[in-house]
């Protein structure tokens, strides 16, 4: 089995789709010669040429809107929004247009577009290059939202996103690009809306996304040393959400922690907590704990940045809290 980094896995999914299908093409800022600000599309210009690997001006409204328009006419474009923060510039097109065409037309229009973007803390980029904004898009009916945390998942889910007939906002986490994993020789599509249990456990369920999946797995190892058995579940797709899998896990463990890097307040974890408490109320032995960033823009100074966003120790603390409440 070949070993691929998360970055290479994204590139592999894009390249395989483009080899298979003339309707798939990619567009974005600096994605051609430079290969993208994170190097994801390196080498693709040479293979596919400038018609299908399209550098755009720094012009998020136009590039998002043009991708939507091409999708409406039957193409399957993948538009790269260089940083999640720049989604703000394309939000009108994504939220008012892509998400609503099918609905407003009474089902006449199909919008098979994928918006890839990346973000996250870790490199001190400051407040305008590190946000985690997935919760905004999960709030919009008509959009699908995907946030993979491993090379295998990112490859299989990107493929499914490209071939989904709905607009998909596809979040990648910057600090995950380098992680490597053995992946199957053939790309195995992963259906949208299926959670993945990364580790089975009996005492607490941690529902985590993105970078926090890895922090949760580290916390689970630490907890195990204290005799606590932790189950780690990654929804992978935030919309549609695999509610059944999350509720089933909590019914088994009776305790739940929700963890993401985005700001805790009004975050994706709040919705997960609501769903879990409703679906597993009689099984819960402790209040659901949430782990996320503090309610502040991301600061520049590394010591402040480090302090604002959650790490494995914060997940562990939350795990222990759910246990302490019951003792």
């Amino acid at each position: 089995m070949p070993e691929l980094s998360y970055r290479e896995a994204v590139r592999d999914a894009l390249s395989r789709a483009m080899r298979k299908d003339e309707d798939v093409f990619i567009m974005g800022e600096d994605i051609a010669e430079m290969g993208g600000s994170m190097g994801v599309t390196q080498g693709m210009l040479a293979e596919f040429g400038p018609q299908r690997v399209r550098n755009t001006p720094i012009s998020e409204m136009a590039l998002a809107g043009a991708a939507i328009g091409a999708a409406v006419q039957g193409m399957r474009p993948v538009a790269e929004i260089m940083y999640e923060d720049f989604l703000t510039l394309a939000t009108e097109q994504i939220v008012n247009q892509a998400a609503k065409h099918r609905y407003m037309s009474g089902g006449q229009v199909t919008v098979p577009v994928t918006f890839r973007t990346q973000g996250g803390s870790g490199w001190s980029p400051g407040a305008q290059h590190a946000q985690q904004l997935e919760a905004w898009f999960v709030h919009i009916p008509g959009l699908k939202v995907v946030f993979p945390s491993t090379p295998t998942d990112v490859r299989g889910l990107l493929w499914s996103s490209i071939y989904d007939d709905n607009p998909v906002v596809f979040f990648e986490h910057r600090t995950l690009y380098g992680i490597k994993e053995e992946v199957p020789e053939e790309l195995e599509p992963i259906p949208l809306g299926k959670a993945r249990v990364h580790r089975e456990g009996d005492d607490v369920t941690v529902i985590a996304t993105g970078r926090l999946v890895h922090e949760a797995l580290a916390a689970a190892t630490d907890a195990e040393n204290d005799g606590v058995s932790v189950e780690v579940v990654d929804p992978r797709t935030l919309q549609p959400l695999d509610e059944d899998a999350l509720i089933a896990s909590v019914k088994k463990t009776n305790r739940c922690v929700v963890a993401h890097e985005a700001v805790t307040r009004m975050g994706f974890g709040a919705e997960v907590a609501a769903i879990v408490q409703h679906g597993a109320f009689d099984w819960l032995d402790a209040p659901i704990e949430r782990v996320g960033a503090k309610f502040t823009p991301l600061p520049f100074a590394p010591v402040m940045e480090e302090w604002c966003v959650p790490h494995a120790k914060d997940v562990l603390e939350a795990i222990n809290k759910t246990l302490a409440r019951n003792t």
Partner: protein
Amino acid sequence: MAKVEQKGALSTEELRDFFREMLLIRRFEEKVEERFRAGELPGFLHVAIGQEAVAVGVCRALEDGDVIASTHRAHGHTLAKGTMPNELMAELYGKLEGCSHGYGGSMHLYDVERGNMGANAVVGGGLPQITGMALAFQLRGEPRVAVAFFGDGATNIGTFHEALNLAQLWKVPAVFVLEDNKWAESTPESQHSPIRDLSKRAEAFGMTAIKVDGQDVEEVYKAAKKALDHARSGKGPVFLHAGTYRLVGHYIGDPQVYRSKEEQQDVRQHHDPLTFLRQKLEITDEEFEEMDADVQEVVDASVEFAKNGTDPRPEDAMKNVYA
């Protein structure tokens, strides 16, 4: 309504057909005003009275397979692009038989089969997508053109500049039709734009701009043909600047406190595209009345059709969110 195939001058017969369609739009819009005032129509309604020649002149110049994106003032474009009055009126009444099946309403009219890719209630919202639709045609080598309608107010918004820049950069087959009625809702052009000639905005991107009197349907048709030929032949997008007049308020019921009664009267008297064409074609009173009665019948029938249409079930609201 036969499609005009020739590219040159129009015959009197063809122009009479254009006149009939403009009259249909006019009477349709007047009926919409009437039914809105009677409390029958929900939603926000913007009628295109005064701008009929732009809609008809441009849409009659299109080929099969060409697509349009419209604006909040969409009834005229929609009828001119071939949607039946019954289907349009049914949409305004929120019925399943409507052209958007009751999910869109006046500001979100779609008729994909006939190439209407949607009216947009966000000013300038459709422009980047027209660039993208034209890109799809270019990538697949299809001889099709994507056409955006928008008003002068839209030339100030970012999507306008970004969409035109990208369209010209990539030389996609698009035509951007500015319906310059000199008003952005209640704000006159002098208050919303520092320049008087809005074509300069397109020329700044290196785009070919064509100016036309938007009240003269024959001129609009000829200019649109020229623009479409240019775009279709791979020479890049065209900015078609049609000077026009909104003979009524921004929305139905707009008291127009921002423009004087004299001006309102002046535009109605001197800038009505129907009056102009009627005189040009020397349509007699008798001929006009016959045509008008015929058109009124179509419009009245559309109201009957709409009123007898099917209400969606409330829970139908959950359909069509995802494909």
